[in-house]
């Protein structure tokens, strides 16, 4: 069965038997000898996607098992705004019910002495504010939900 895999937002269809020599030599480290070329490929599963390092580049890969894939629902409804990276919430700039503009700051997250303002991707009304000042958040953790 073919897998439909997204590599840096490009869709690639692959068969898992395509690379019969591919060997996992260490946990998360694969070796491939193909047409006389030796490749080392590293993979780490982070925040629901795979970081794959190959030939000096890092590709972000979303691979879902075709046996398990649930049909994806694309809806217009509420949107969760998540932290892009782990950090500490140092300011919450909106409250529930606020109308926000595209690009307006919602929450400020700090990590390693640098501050990152999480912004609204579109004009909307704030439905829910999950972020609390002083809380530590993981990457991908929902901070704010907009309508």
């Amino acid at each position, binding site marked *: 069965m073919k897998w439909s895999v997204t590599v840096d937002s490009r869709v690639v269809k692959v068969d898992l038997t395509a690379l019969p020599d591919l060997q996992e030599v260490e946990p998360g480290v694969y070796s491939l000898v193909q047409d006389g070329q030796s490749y080392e490929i590293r*993979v*780490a599963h982070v925040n629901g996607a795979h970081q794959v390092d190959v030939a000096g580049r890092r590709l972000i890969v979303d691979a879902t098992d075709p046996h398990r894939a649930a049909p994806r629902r694309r809806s217009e409804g509420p949107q969760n705004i998540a932290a892009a990276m782990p950090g500490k919430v140092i300011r919450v700039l909106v409250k529930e019910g606020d109308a926000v503009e595209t690009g307006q700051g919602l929450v400020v997250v700090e990590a390693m002495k640098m501050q990152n303002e999480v912004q609204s991707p579109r004009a909307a009304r704030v439905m829910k504010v999950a972020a609390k000042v002083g809380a530590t958040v993981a990457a991908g953790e929902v901070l704010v939900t907009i309508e």
Partner: protein
Amino acid sequence: MFRKVLIANRGEIAVRVIRALREMGIASVAVYSDADRRSLHVRRADEAEHVGGSPSDDSYLRIDRVLDAARKHGADAIHPGYGFLSENAEFAAACAAQGVTFIGPPPEAISALGSKTEARKLALRVGVPVVPGTEEPLGGLHDAQQAARRIGYPVMLKAAAGGGGKGMRRVDSEAELEPALRDASSEAQRSFGSDEIYLEKLLINPRHIEIQLIGDLHGNTIHLGERECSLQRRHQKVLEECPSPLVAEHPELRHEMGAAALKLARAAGYVNAGTAEFLVDGDGRFYFLEMNTRLQVEHPVTEWVTGLDLVHLQLRIAAGEPLGIRQSDVKWQGAAIECRICAEDPEYGFFPSPGHIVHLAEPAGPGVRVDSGVYSGWDIPLEYDPLLAKLTVHGPDRDAAIARARRAIDEYAITGVTTNLRFFRDLLRDEEFISGRLHTGFIEEFLARRPRHEPNSHYDVLAAVVAAMHTRDTEPERTDHLHGSRWVSEGRRRMLR
């Protein structure tokens, strides 16, 4: 010599000091915060003491707790590393009061050289050049014209009370001076409540070159040559090297800057390791900037080319031993380069990227040294700076060192978090970098010309297959209860491969 030394620091520098202590047969005491219980320096040390919460002002900056730990463990000296308490004269004095040796300069020298303005005054007094400028605020347009003529254009107007670019104006000629002074004064008044302006010579794309100093308690002070630190971003150094490509062209510069740095050190009664930082213009004129009264992050570059171990020397000097090396004994061999490996995302404004290190493979082989504070499976804390490790390489000349650095970066793998490894991969192949025409604006210019890596369908397929296989092999087993043991399903998988 000391029997036991406490390291008032964390991360790679704490590990670096522990290594030196072990080589010298001295016991080590690590201190750690809540966030650092599982950090490498705690694992490597002989003894360890918890000193407080994760924020550094509740742990690594707590003079009282660090000294309590030293007392409790019977440490006879404290190595401060860099950052944290390393340039804190009060801490150095508190160590002395408790009868613990502070491995660094005396508190008086830290005070005399640690403050930028005090150090500038001292430099002027002993005749070491500083960036030319007015010592007092300007008294009006006529005063400004006089000063600018004396110093020479281009000049920079700066708010005396200011910072952050407010109240600053570049002036290239006398015609521009009047409006620029007016604008700068009113902006300074609005921003800082003071319209006082002073004037400084504007150095265009200067180099940042520093001199390593080391002195003992018996009046012997020598310099160990320069390090070129021009590659910086937001005043954070990115890559350092020795020799400076400029010094390689003008060898006399090393000795002139070295002599200037020694004048300052001697005037301030400096002891132990320290670094004098200079800006150098296109004509090789150098201007003293500031003094760092501690071991520098980039000290391994100097260790590679001089063959000296700076931490061993620091310990011996602090224990009262004579330096044992004369200036004429110092020889510089080959070229060394350091890359600061950080958990940060160069594609995203170098934003810090803490997280879980899934897999770590460090480079090795000829001429390669890794000073690391991390390990595979470790969670990088949010609270501290993003430096993970320093990769330093040495080769017979600069080209060989660059080739070695490229090779080592290719061997280096850190997965799970975003690092600047791929940034270095590109930087070390950049023609301008290879040419050695470095200046403090270099990194910004490089970011604009950094090559884009076009998608490659072959690599896409490799990545897709590996990710799919990894997903299949690491997903929780759904069918175990239906098909028996994991071994059976593992066997089935192998047949499918």
